[in-house]
């Protein structure tokens, strides 16, 4: 009889491994969401000079557990006019792609659900499936706010997917693999990808904020305009599944992608001697990025929908295309060294950041000109 890991028969080990992996992912998602909600509230409170949750448990640590228990124990309210099957299916449609994308996140050298050789493509595919659930939720709620939220979400997510994928392409060009494990292994030294490809990191970061509906791109659930957007009619654990679990799970997945592709994933000092240390490094990197997301949420105001769209189509996508062109040409011209790619990418980043005020000034001048022209006949008449 062949012996697999832990002295188990491989026939038993194969399904057992599946169960263990799914249970572990669910455990991490549930607790990660609780922890991230607590962190979010505490950090925003800190930045806004408040206290945040502090009644339940030490430092308010048990507040989110209490909230989750309340959500689970809540009465299942379903408004009468909703489209019953779709209304029930939408939380699952949002949650399942997020859960499935945890399969390819490499937590450490050997701790990965499946080392797919198209891992990155798999992740973008699942990211694009979340839209379907949100649109269905907006539609099935039979509520104008929810519908507008769903429509906004569809437009936003489909648009921002493009710069996201284009930014990933440049990393794939340099590394030469779509597998998350290979990409991590290629960044063994201190020279991680963010130093070589800073521009695509910035593009992906901005697009990821939009993809996970975080401020300043949280238009699908803009509370000052749309009550709660596509979540308006949901309550109890359905709301909890959609908002808390799926949104924070997605944030974790996106930060996992950022950490793996640009920050070296589980690579770090001492990993070669003690492979389990990789889990610590990976978690630290992911949570550092999540903290940046929260910091941005506490800092920036929300955009308008037309600004959001024009920024994507006129700003990010051309920038991402130029980035791909430069990276492809330089890595073809100099296959042995990554220095030219790094220099080109840094120049692009500086040009992008320095160009923003210029574009903004021209836009403002154009707006003023239009306002003056439209005011002229009024002034002449009066």
């Amino acid at each position, binding site marked *: 009889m062949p012996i697999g890991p832990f002295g188990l028969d491989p026939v038993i080990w194969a399904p057992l491994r599946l169960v263990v992996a799914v249970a572990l992912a669910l455990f991490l998602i549930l607790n990660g969401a609780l922890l991230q909600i607590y962190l979010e509230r505490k950090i925003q409170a800190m930045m806004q000079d408040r206290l945040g949750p502090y009644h339940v448990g030490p430092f308010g640590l048990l507040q989110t557990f209490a909230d989750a228990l309340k959500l689970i124990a809540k009465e299942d309210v379903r408004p009468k006019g909703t489209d019953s099957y779709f209304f029930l299916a939408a939380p699952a449609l949002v949650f399942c792609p997020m859960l499935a994308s945890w399969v390819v996140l490499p937590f450490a050298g050997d701790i990965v659900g499946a080392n797919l050789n198209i891992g990155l493509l798999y992740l973008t595919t699942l990211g694009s499936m979340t*839209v379907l659930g949100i649109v269905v939720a907006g539609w099935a709620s039979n509520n104008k706010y929810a519908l507008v939220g769903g429509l906004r979400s569809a437009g936003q997510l489909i648009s921002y997917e493009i710069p996201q994928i284009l930014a990933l392409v440049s990393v794939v060009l340099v590394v030469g693999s779509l597998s998350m494990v290979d990409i991590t292994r290629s960044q063994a030294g201190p020279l991680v990808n963010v130093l070589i490809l800073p521009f695509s990191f910035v593009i992906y970061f901005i697009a990821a904020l939009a993809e996970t509906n975080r401020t300043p791109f949280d238009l699908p659930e803009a509370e000052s305009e749309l009550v709660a957007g596509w979540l308006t009619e949901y309550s109890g654990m359905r709301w909890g599944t959609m908002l808390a679990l799926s949104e924070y799970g997605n944030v974790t997945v996106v930060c996992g992608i950022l950490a793996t592709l640009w920050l070296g994933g589980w690579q770090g000092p001492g990993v070669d001697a003690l492979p389990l240390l990789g889990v610590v490094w990976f978690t630290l990197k992911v949570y550092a990025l999540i903290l940046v997301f929260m910091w941005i949420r506490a800092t920036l105001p929300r955009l308008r929908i037309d600004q959001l769209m024009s920024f994507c189509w006129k700003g990010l996508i051309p920038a991402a295309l130029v980035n791909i062109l430069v990276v492809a040409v330089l890595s073809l011209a100099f296959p042995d060294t990554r220095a030219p790619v790094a220099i080109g990418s840094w120049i692009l980043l500086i040009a992008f950041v320095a160009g923003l005020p210029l574009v903004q000034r021209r836009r403002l001048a154009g707006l003023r000109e239009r306002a003056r022209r439209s005011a002229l006949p009024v002034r002449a008449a009066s």
Partner: protein
Amino acid sequence: MTFDFVEPVVFAVLSIGVIGAGAAVVLINRITAAALLMALTFLCMAGMFVLLGAETIAAFQVLIYVGAITVLILYGVMFTKYGDRPYGLFFQRQTPLAAVFVFALAVPVAYWAFFFTSPPPRPGGGDLPALATSVFTDYAFPFEVASVLLLAAMVGAIVLTKRDETHEFDERRRR
């Protein structure tokens, strides 16, 4: 005990998904449900590609058809005034004719399918470099033709829906 029985079972489930959901798309009255069932058909097709060892094609199938096209169809449905489709408005009278055509097509296809032996699927469909090489060398011309077709469709859509902006501005001013 081995897991050889899993693949036929999965194939059966996926086939039922493809055929059942595809039939439901045509027969069902609610247009949003039809759009979602179409997404289910695409997902089951992606599963078939995975069974054949072509993970890359499956990923693209889901990325483009489920993630983008179905969402755009739903988007379009939400923006149009909808009501339940009138029952069998167009096809009611042609039922006998349609039945004859379907039968004429289905019998040869079924006959052919029973005596069809496929070459064994070559592994390595997840091999992206090989796929990319074949698309950009052997199939470069069809690829470019397809992209020109899509471009033409897009330009046509823009031309059809674009309104004369200055004219409209004047109209609004006059009101």
